[in-house]
């Protein structure tokens, strides 16, 4: 493996990080209303949310990315690969985050009815001031392991041409015909990138546990 | 394995060669000394009750005997098998030991995914090499003996606690052991259910089974066992014929313990 090859692959790292971060942000934010709908008292809202979540999770990410990139591109909207990948992965993340929030809610509350009451508008403040921080702490470990999964899923964006690690790896491997070490290094890069997330999550978990537990 | 042979008189018991011998058994967990210098020898047909305060090492002693917990020092001898602390016993030695010792746990530990019959048959097939038919036939007899033949095809979860413990006794008897160890077999049970288990144990004792029973049932210790051992802080603080020890303890530690539990 030459230095040149290695540098090319490492040049994908910022793209991988950026894609993961943007998709995660979209998912973390959109997951909140989706979770609220999923736990709403209105049957219609619940059903819509449930269908959305099930559909987003049932169809493989690569199909969503192709759909958004090739499918939507035919007419008035035109997305670049990064945008398409961020939206696709972000929506899938939203569905998964909604489920993670819901799991955390029922872990905090014993009863689901109570949890959905907390989501009513009248208790808006109670939710954000009291429940929010607790929710954050309970949801953190699953959210962190989801983030690591997302980091790995972001490799799929190479198939629509986002210049991230997997893209650079296949580029280099096609150029040099050295798949063995190229893909081994690519795999290693992903593993290395996931380590800080795991550490940060463990650190935050300990830190917050000490605080919330008092 | 007949239940009906008459109980063995006290004097007779002491003169027989020991069936089980413990020499200087010690056990430490890290730096925590749980058992220290335990000597014990058990004649065939003898029933020994071990009593003592919580944490005194009673369960650990039982578990050291059948090597669920390897002792740190000392020696366990049963028949012509001797297991020395410090040497990892061979598989053959362990098998010889465990085939000769049946154990009944406080929490029954029946296999929940197997029927009552399979619970009792499993070891006969896998350890004694009996066929399924032979094993099931023996198991049915054993279940009949503990009064549960009608539960054979049920799963343990469908049985009451007392029934489960009686099944556990049948399971332990299935290998035709020479010695039975009981670790607080009635502690997890309502008193009423405990009685049906104690009745089975009493019958076993009267049938000549050699038994070590860790118990909080002072009446059982006094009336059924031949000998009582009182443990405290990992040591044997007093032992002797059950009547004497229970009514007339000599050491201050034993007196204190018996005084504390005399209402039970």
């Amino acid at each position, binding site marked *: 493996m030459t230095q040149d090859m290695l540098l090319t692959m490492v040049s994908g790292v910022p793209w991988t990080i950026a894609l993961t971060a943007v998709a995660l942000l979209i998912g973390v934010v959109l997951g909140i209303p989706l979770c609220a709908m999923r736990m709403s008292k209105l049957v219609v809202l619940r059903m819509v949310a449930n269908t959305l979540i*099930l559909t987003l999770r049932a169809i493989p990410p690569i199909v969503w990315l192709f759909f958004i990139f090739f499918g939507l591109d035919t007419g008035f909207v035109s997305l670049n690969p990064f945008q398409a990948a961020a939206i696709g992965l972000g929506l899938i993340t939203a569905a998964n985050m909604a489920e993670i929030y819901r799991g955390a809610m029922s872990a905090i509350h014993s009863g689901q009815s109570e949890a959905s009451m907390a989501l009513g508008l009248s208790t808006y403040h109670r939710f954000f001031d009291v429940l929010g921080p607790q929710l954050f702490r309970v949801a953190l470990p699953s959210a962190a392991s989801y983030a690591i999964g997302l980091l790995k899923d972001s490799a799929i964006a190479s198939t629509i041409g986002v210049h991230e690690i997997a893209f650079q790896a296949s580029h280099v491997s096609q150029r040099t015909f050295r798949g*063995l070490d190229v893909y081994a290094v690519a795999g290693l890069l992903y593993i290395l990138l996931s380590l800080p997330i795991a550490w940060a999550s463990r650190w935050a978990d300990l830190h917050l546990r000490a605080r919330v537990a008092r | 394995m007949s239940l009906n042979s008459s109980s063995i008189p006290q004097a007779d018991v002491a003169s027989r060669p020991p069936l089980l011998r413990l020499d200087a058994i010690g056990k430490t967990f890290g730096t925590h000394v749980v058992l220290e210098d335990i000597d014990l020898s058990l004649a065939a047909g003898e029933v020994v009750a071990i009593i003592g305060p919580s944490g005194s090492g009673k369960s650990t002693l039982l578990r050291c005997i059948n090597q669920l917990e390897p002792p740190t020092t000392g020696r366990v001898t049963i028949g012509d098998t001797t297991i020395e602390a410090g040497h990892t016993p061979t598989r053959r030695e362990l098998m010889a030991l465990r085939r000769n010792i049946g154990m009944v746990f406080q929490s029954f530990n029946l296999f929940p995914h197997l029927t009552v019959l399979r619970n009792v048959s499993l070891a006969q097939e896998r350890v004694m090499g009996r066929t399924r038919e032979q094993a099931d036939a023996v198991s049915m007899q054993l279940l009949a003996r503990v009064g549960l033949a009608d539960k054979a095809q049920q799963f343990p979860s469908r049985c009451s606690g007392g029934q489960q413990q009686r099944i556990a006794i049948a399971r332990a008897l299935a290998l035709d052991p020479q010695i039975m160890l009981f670790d607080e077999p009635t502690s997890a049970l309502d008193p009423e259910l405990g009685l049906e288990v104690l009745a089975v144990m009493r019958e076993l004792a009267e049938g000549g089974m050699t038994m070590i029973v860790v118990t909080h049932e002072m009446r059982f210790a006094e009336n059924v066992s031949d000998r009582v051992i009182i443990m405290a802080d990992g040591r044997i603080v007093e032992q002797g014929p059950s009547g004497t020890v229970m009514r007339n303890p000599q050491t201050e530690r034993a007196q204190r313990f018996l005084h504390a539990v005399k209402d039970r």
Partner: protein
Amino acid sequence: MNDLVDFWLEHLPAMLDGLLVSVQVTGVSLAIGVPLGLMLALAVQSRSKPMRGIAIVVVEVGRGAPALILLQFTYFGLPNAGLSLDSFASAVIALAWCTGAYTSEIIRAGLEAVPHGQKEAAEAIGLNHLDALRYVILPQALRVSVPALLGFSILMLQASSLCFAIALPELVSQAYLIGSTTFRYMPILVLAGLLYAAICIPATIAVSALERKLGAHA
């Protein structure tokens, strides 16, 4: 609308062929990967240090590297080491590796869920290590693991879509091919999505129902 239905009907046979390949590659990978996961779960708890070390590396790489990279590694990489495999065999190796790594964690959790008293009881009645595992511990551990293993199987069917990258003619490859020849990506991708959803949504609902049922009994 009629036009869309005609388009779908025209290409449905090719898409179903693709779906069949997806299901086959998933099935074979699971059939190899789950037993591998069981072995890894046991090896990770083994007393032998080298064994434990190897198992941990296999699990951590299988879980840590993206499935796409594993696929490309086996398909484009292994030929460098003198091992050229067709895309189906490469896919099976990569996905079975991934399955083994993930299911070893699922099975390990199942093993840990079996109460310690069960192992002791098995030992006390004289069962040797292997028999205790086979007759007492594993049946209980696997029972606990079943919902998670089924859930993982659904994820694997989805992951098989990544075999697109190594030219395995599975569902996404077929859709992509049809899309690139007809320039009608949108409808064919919708059909692909519908086919995945038709399998995965009912399966997901069934698995969570099973989970609830087992949870209620525990």
